[in-house]
């Protein structure tokens, strides 16, 4: 059974409008549907303005969607009350791109990791501290790091603190929103290694939001490609890389720099004026969908 099912998710922003001017509507997310099975590493890729991050935020109701359904373990999160949603968030955590912005600079790492347990009133002080020690070890940090402030960490370590905090409540789903994009490649590889390792050890499911196709190819088993608020292609990662069907996906793949200086370069340009967004997804091969 799918852990997360997103049906026809829409987020429109209405801007401006005046006496004689009709307001304009930005269709940030425009009818997005996909589902993620337990244990999946599901990649949501796209360029800026594609709506990939807004989709992630709508799923967690960090922004309220305009319409649609987000079913988590079969229940529609969008109908939950605020209180019920707060409880549901225990099970779904987010890791952002820039832990420097998302971690409280005045709190020590140990307190940052412990805070979700306090908010949800879990355990006694002793139990919480034991849990923090376990989490910190799990993400590859050491006990000495607990008393340090975010600015005392390197970027990779800060991201590990953010991951430990996200894991504190034992979630089933992690939304990783460009979680490793800002890191140097060697550090990126380590943090990706950690995410993969945690997936295996804890049976986590990931929604991995990213712009870097090389990264996604490497770690996600399924992926969806977004363009201007729509999913234009979706399927097994391997199938999409082998046999991309949508012209935008093809252009995106052809833009990836290849490590081989002798590789033939065939840049495929995507004609943006050809995109109207009204072509429905159809199955081009088993389990591989494209809006063509």
């Amino acid at each position, binding site marked *: 059974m799918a852990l997360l099912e997103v049906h026809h998710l829409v987020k429109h922003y209405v801007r401006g409008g005046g006496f004689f001017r009709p307001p304009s509507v930005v269709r940030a997310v425009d009818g997005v549907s996909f589902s993620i099975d337990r244990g999946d590493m599901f990649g949501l890729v796209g360029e800026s303005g594609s709506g990939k991050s807004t989709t992630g935020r709508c799923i967690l109701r960090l922004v309220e969607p305009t319409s649609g359904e987000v079913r988590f373990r079969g229940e529609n999160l969008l109908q939950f009350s605020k209180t019920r949603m707060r409880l549901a968030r225990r099970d779904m955590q987010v890791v952002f791109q820039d832990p420097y912005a998302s971690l409280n600079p005045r709190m020590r790492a140990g307190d940052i990791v412990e805070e979700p347990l306090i908010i949800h009133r879990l355990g006694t002080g002793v139990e919480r501290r034991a849990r923090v020690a376990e989490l910190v070890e799990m993400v590859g940090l050491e006990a000495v790091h607990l008393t340090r402030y975010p600015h005392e960490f390197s970027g990779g370590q800060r991201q590990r603190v953010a991951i430990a905090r996200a894991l504190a409540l034992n979630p089933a789903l992690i939304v990783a929103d460009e979680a490793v994009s800002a890191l140097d*490649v*060697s550090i*990126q590889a380590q943090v990706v290694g950690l995410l993969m390792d945690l997936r295996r050890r804890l049976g986590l499911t990931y929604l991995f939001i990213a712009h870097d*196709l090389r990264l*996604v190819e490497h770690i996600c088993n399924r992926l969806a490609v977004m363009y201007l608020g729509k999913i234009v292609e979706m399927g097994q990662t391997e199938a999409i890389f082998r046999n991309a069907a949508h012209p935008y996906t093809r252009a995106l793949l052809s*833009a990836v720099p290849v*490590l081989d*200086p002798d590789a033939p370069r065939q840049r495929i340009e995507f004609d943006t004026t050809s995109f109207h967004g009204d072509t429905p997804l159809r199955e081009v091969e088993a389990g591989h969908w494209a809006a063509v």
Partner: protein
Amino acid sequence: MSPLLDVQHLTVRFESPDSTITAVDDLSLSIFPGETLGIVGESGSGKSLTALSILRLLPPRARVMGGRILFEGRDLLGLPEAEMRAIRGARISLIFQEPMTALNPAMRVGDQVAEALTVHGASRAEARRRAVQLLEDVRIPDAERRWSDYPHQLSGGMRQRVMIAIAIACRPALVIADEPTTALDLTIQAQVLDLLRELKARFDLALLLITHDFGIIAEMADRVLVMHGGLAVEHGTVRQVLREPADDYTRRLLGAVPGRGAR
């Protein structure tokens, strides 16, 4: 043929009352006319400081402690500031990662391109005429109309094209591009790299391309220098370094590049 730029034993240090950090350590490199040299490294490797040293634009606390930077036969480190200004932007120009911070937000983009020409002696009418041509050279559609846009009205890719137009305005011999596409989307990055390659051939530019991305090196550079902790750990033709990396750090860096090439 003698090199256009010949950096010999460059050492740059950050000094404060209680610590000294060697950011660039005895670095030597050379670039021949029309050639692309890539410098690849992670943050803190010293790659950007190397570029800033060449232009003598180091931040206040960083100092060149030794070495020579020979450009067209002259040691830039010994030039009076006035002569350095005549080289900067005219013979050697710089493209930054973030055009939004490098461009003046309160000035029309056309005027900014024209300014690059007038500071180096062009008349205003001449500058205006050539600036339109430059905006066309960097493939900004509808250049006449775009002239009067402010930077915030342009997309990231278009802003970077304006930066490139400014960089090539005076027909420099060397363009230093420091992470020129890092802030851009992948498809836009591909377009900007294609543009750089085209302009390089057309105007016979030498390019010093600084990046963290080995994929970009593979696409763009003739030779590559790998920097780590201020040191040049490996140096060779791109083919040689990618096929048979000799240094441990280079191998690790290549191994960490996700996806396709790494397999």
